[in-house]
């Protein structure tokens, strides 16, 4: 349990998806002009991570890993299907995002309308696929490694933490960009340039968490 808590906190600050690994930058830069839409997108990404990561973890442990298929019978114990991981992960993500889209449309039409095109675009958001690939890498580590994901609870903690960290980053950037609208930025830096410098400085600030021992 305490390992799950430590993974949760580390994923928010130390292994922040945006500032440490640059996952999900494209939609991050596109949506962060406005705080309200950023909050909506942050929640949507967290939600999708929360559903896709455990499903992909179960796939990885019971189907894809070397020797994973031994539950089917002894003659399957030597199979290593890890080369199928990319195709299977992305198919699972695309299917789940489609499902989430249908559910959101049914139960909250206003949220559906405000998210617009960004909801289906979460399927190709690097953060979701990146989360799945990092999870695959970390599930394969020795259990003594502090970064190892050893159970479903760990994976859920990782998903929640990563999503929350991403949401924190995007809302923070949106708040700064809204204020930057009124500043006198030199013409060549306007828009994209000053945004990159801002994210760079935020990333520098988050480096202070790297010494955290949990």
């Amino acid at each position, binding site marked *: 349990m305490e390992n799950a808590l430590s993974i949760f906190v580390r994923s928010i600050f130390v292994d922040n998806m945006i*500032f*440490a*690994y*640059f*996952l*999900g*930058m*494209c939609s991050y*830069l*596109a949506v962060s002009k406005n705080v309200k839409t950023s909050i909506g997108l942050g929640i949507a990404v967290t939600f999708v991570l929360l559903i896709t990561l455990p499903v992909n973890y179960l796939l990885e442990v019971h189907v894809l890993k070397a020797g994973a298929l031994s539950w089917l019978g002894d003659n399957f114990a030597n199979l290593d299907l890890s*080369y*199928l*991981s*990319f*195709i299977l992960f*992305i*198919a699972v993500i*695309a299917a789940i995002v489609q499902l989430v889209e249908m559910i959101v449309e049914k139960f909250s039409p206003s949220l559906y309308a405000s998210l617009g095109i960004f909801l*289906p675009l979460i*399927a*190709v*958001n*690097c953060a*979701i*696929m*990146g989360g799945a*690939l*990092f999870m695959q*890498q970390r599930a394969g580590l020795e259990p003594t490694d502090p970064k190892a994901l050893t159970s479903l609870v760990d994976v859920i903690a990782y998903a929640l933490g990563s999503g929350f960290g991403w949401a924190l980053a995007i809302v923070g950037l949106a708040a700064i960009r809204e204020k930057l609208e009124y500043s006198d*930025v030199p*013409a*060549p*830096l*306007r*828009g*994209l*340039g*000053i945004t*990159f*410098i801002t*994210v*760079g*400085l935020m*990333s*520098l600030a988050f*480096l202070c968490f790297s010494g955290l021992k949990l």
Partner: protein
Amino acid sequence: MKINEELKNTLLGPLSKNNPIAVQVLGICSALAVTVELKPALVMGISVTIIVALANVVISLIRNTIPNSVRIIVQLVVVAALVTIVSEFLKAFAFDVSVQLSVYIGLIITNCILMGRLEAFAMSNKPGPAFLDGLGNGLGYAIILVAVAFVRELFGSGTLFGFQIVPHSWYEAGYLNNGLMMMPSMALILLACFIWIHRSVDKDLQEKG
């Protein structure tokens, strides 16, 4: 001659005027993460160029037979298959680079440049121009990657491609490698500097205040 002019623009446009990273704002994730050293950046740039060009050709060939409702899934599956092939190839012939690149090879699947070009160009153009568009965008992406990695590796570790560039005598005189260059933040700030230079030279790209 008009066709050649159009094809030339398709190939050369993304190198500067319509650069995927600096102008279209696509493919940022991997551009920042793999540029700590020059070798992985170059391998990444070449891999993405090959994948974008081939994916563009494949999707362009089948563009009239894909039902609209499964469009994204078909594109994703084609790209995932190509990335799997490239990834296995890299694991076999360039293992140390593939370990350095780790998850970012898999992340080429969700690389916005791919999805962006497939939707915007391959779905409505013939295979020939689609191949050139893929090649141009891949090369535009690779140029930025190599430029950022060049600065980061040179100032961050004094080497280029692993070869020591900064002479040992400088280290003895008190010169130190710039550790900040190895941090993710510098990739962002360097990219901002390149965009600054790019947009100062080409004033059309500046955003209106």
